[in-house]
């Protein structure tokens, strides 16, 4: 149905897709995986002639339903799009025009490709929305994308892509940026299409996601396919080190303490690591238990004023982090995780309850009294870039953070800090804007460490990174936490990440902590139905 050979795309001299070949038959799901920037999205878009106005595309063969499109003009492409191939774009949240009702967006392909009276079109839109599992199709059709949640937007986008029942669907990262439970539902929806005979090209950087759906997997790196095979072959017996790294980087299932970014682990070491991890969990840090926690939230409640009353973002939350321990905090979007982090950092005042830092009720201090204590608690954010002053280079950022230590401890030099997080000294002269995401996050970690904190608050530190980079950052954090005996509050919506990083976990839902306990225990035998649902929805490499 789709038959591509030697597809090449270049932008102004640099080739970003280099000789990709692939075939998809009806009902088959082919997945492309690979790290960020490997050319997955460009490949997908090139299949519809949408690589971009500045792109040069060539191919030996580019057949959709047997029709050669290698030299198709814009008009021909327009006929192919949506009718023969449906495309679900990577940026689901911004792929719908925020100013147009969703129904109109879905209607577009019907209007453009089919002669249909408007009433029939509208009926069909409702039917499509129903098919993708929209709770209230009539309402959704009238709403605009901004009024829909991420999951619903993704459904609307899928509805638009399948409006003409195209025999082939291309889904580019259809679940990135979605909560696990939503992700599970979207994947299930896609699975239904393949079951009905639609061919599916699924693109993701996350092998765990792909595993559930794909019949065959193509691994891309630097624009070229470096490995190809059935799902079982690729995941079970990866041939290239790169693929093995991708597999290793998936945190879920990799026990606490085992590095994610080391590729060819000797089996012995693996077993050993697992063993240590087990012991660590089974003996739940008795020594630490007796000590008083370094950071504790004690029945903390935080409400915000909204248009019609007050909204409780954090509801009677108690948690504690001990020295040398990592507490994981998971929960869906909006459950109050960031608010907890801000409370812990005393950036916002609780309505009731206390935040205690090393015995001091520090949420009650005045800011001036609190300031000398601030260096004891560091923070790392999801969006590292916006946490840097845009005018400063890395050296200045780090020096500034280090000189802020008012405790007199000799500030570690910039070079040493960079070295600690595995960055070259030359990075000091660059501005964060010019760094890659992984590098930025390393700088953020270096900055947090500059003041030699005892507690580290990490709010989604890896959510914006792709798996391989994520693996490196997680390893770095883990190592630093252990070597420095830091207490760490680790926030993430990704169960796998939390499971890998945390000694204990707390699960948040709607501002409350619904379950807490040792990580392995919570994930293995969830007590609360919400946790159970989360665990069930979370994709894994192995069952």
């Amino acid at each position, binding site marked *: 149905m789709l038959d591509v050979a030697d597809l090449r795309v270049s932008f102004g001299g640099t080739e970003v897709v280099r000789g990709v070949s692939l075939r998809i038959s009806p009902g088959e799901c082919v997945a492309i995986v690979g790290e960020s920037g490997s050319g997955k999205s460009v490949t997908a878009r090139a299949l519809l002639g949408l690589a971009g106005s500045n792109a040069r595309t060539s191919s030996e063969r580019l057949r959709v339903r047997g029709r050669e499109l290698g030299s198709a003009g814009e008009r021909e492409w327009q006929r192919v799009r949506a009718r023969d191939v449906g495309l679900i774009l990577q940026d689901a949240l911004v792929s719908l025009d925020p100013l147009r009702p969703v129904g109109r967006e879905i209607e577009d392909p019907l209007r453009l490709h089919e002669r249909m009276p408007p009433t029939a079109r509208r009926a069909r839109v409702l039917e499509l929305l129903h098919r993708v599992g929209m709770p209230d199709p009539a309402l959704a059709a009238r709403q605009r994308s901004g009024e829909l949640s991420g999951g619903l937007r993704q459904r609307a986008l899928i509805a638009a892509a399948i409006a003409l029942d195209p025999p082939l669907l291309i889904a580019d990262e259809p679940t990135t940026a979605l909560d696990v439970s939503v992700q599970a539902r979207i994947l299930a929806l896609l699975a239904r299409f393949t079951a009905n005979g639609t061919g599916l090209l699924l693109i993701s950087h996350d092998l765990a996601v792909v595993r559930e759906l794909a019949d065959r997997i193509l691994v891309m790196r630097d624009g070229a396919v470096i490995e190809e095979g059935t799902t079982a072959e690729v995941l079970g017996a990866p041939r290239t080190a790169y693929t093995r790294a991708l597999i290793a980087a998936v945190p879920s299932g990799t026990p606490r303490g085992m590095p994610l970014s080391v590729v060819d682990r000797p089996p012995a070491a693996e077993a050993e690591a697992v063993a240590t991890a087990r012991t660590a969990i089974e003996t739940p840090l008795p020594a630490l238990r007796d000590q008083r926690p370094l950071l504790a939230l004690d029945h903390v409640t935080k409400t915000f004023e909204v248009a019609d009353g007050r909204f409780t973002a954090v509801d009677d939350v108690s948690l504690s982090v001990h020295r040398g321990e990592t507490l994981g905090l998971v929960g869906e979007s909006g459950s109050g995780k960031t608010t907890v982090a801000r409370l812990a950092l005393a950036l916002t005042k609780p309505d009731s309850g206390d935040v205690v830092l090393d015995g001091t009720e520090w949420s009650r201090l005045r800011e001036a009294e609190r300031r000398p204590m601030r260096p004891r608690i560091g923070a790392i*954010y999801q969006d590292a870039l916006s946490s840097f002053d845009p*005018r400063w280079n890395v050296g200045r950022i780090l020096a500034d953070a280090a000189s*802020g230590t008012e405790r007199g401890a000799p500030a570690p030099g910039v070079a040493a800090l960079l070295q600690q997080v595995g960055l070259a000294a030359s990075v000091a002269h660059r501005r964060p804007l010019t760094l890659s995401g992984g590098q930025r996050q390393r700088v953020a970690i270096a900055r947090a460490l500059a003041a030699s904190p005892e507690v580290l608050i990490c709010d989604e530190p890896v959510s914006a990174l792709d798996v391989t980079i994520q693996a490196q950052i997680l390893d770095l954090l883990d190592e630093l936490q252990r070597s420095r005996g830091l207490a760490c509050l680790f926030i993430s919506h990704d169960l796998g990440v939390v499971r890998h990083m945390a000694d204990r976990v707390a699960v948040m839902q709607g501002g409350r902590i619904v379950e807490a306990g040792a990580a392995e225990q919570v994930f293995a035998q969830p007590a609360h139905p919400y946790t159970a649902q989360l665990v069930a929805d979370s994709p894994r490499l192995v069952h």
Partner: protein
Amino acid sequence: MSELELRQTTVEASAEHRPPRRRDRLPRVGTLLAIAFVLFLVAATCFPGLVATQDPNQIAAAEAFRSPSLAHWFGTDESGRDVYSRVIAGTGTSLLIGVTATAIGLALGLALGVLASFGGRALDFGVSRVVEVLFAFPGLLLALLVIVIYGPGPVTATIAVGLSTAPGYARIIRGQLVSIRSAQFVESARVLGHSPARILARHIVPNALVPIFVLATLGIGQAIVWASALSYLGLGAQPPAAEWGAMLAAGRTYLAGAWWMTVFPGLMIVGTTIATTVLGRALARRGRGPS
């Protein structure tokens, strides 16, 4: 929203939202031209004698209304004065009006903006309403009132124009300060335990100043245009001061017979506006873009 805010959005849009492109790193041809023009203006301001060819106020009634020639590059005006020399002589005055008016607007806007953004909720509400009220007097209206009260003249015109731009600046500066104050990098400085004074000095002020400065470069040309409207209404610069707006206004009467009397001062105003705007945008790109 005001014209300034509009400029603000364009500055930000051109600086921020677009990914840095390769050609943004090199000064464009336009930017170079703009720099050259501004340098010329500066030369004309500081050393008018070097650039001009004749005494701008030398009257020669018999030489009136000469069209452009080698002797008079831009022709002569109704009193036989050399238009080119007057345009050059007017550079200083016009730029002074533009710069001063902008500075006044900016200073007032800064005061109001700082009050609003650092003075707590009540003050913020109060100042915002004041700004709203000032906005309800459209530019020329405010200027007219000021002029009626304090009499016409270049100083009043400048103050009037400055005043009428102040609410726009105030709103932008407030927004700028508020957004910087709540920016994540300010928060992370707080988390590091830095004092408010240090945060203000190292983060908030420098980050607010650059865009405000850029904005100011954009306001200069517009201030000259407004001041020229006042000159047309007979409320601006006083004779024989060679000021572009006043020349434009004076020459307008003879447009049919002596186009050169308005076209050249007009070109200078347009040129200055374009050059400052282009420079402002280039500055904005540099301020945010890769180093």
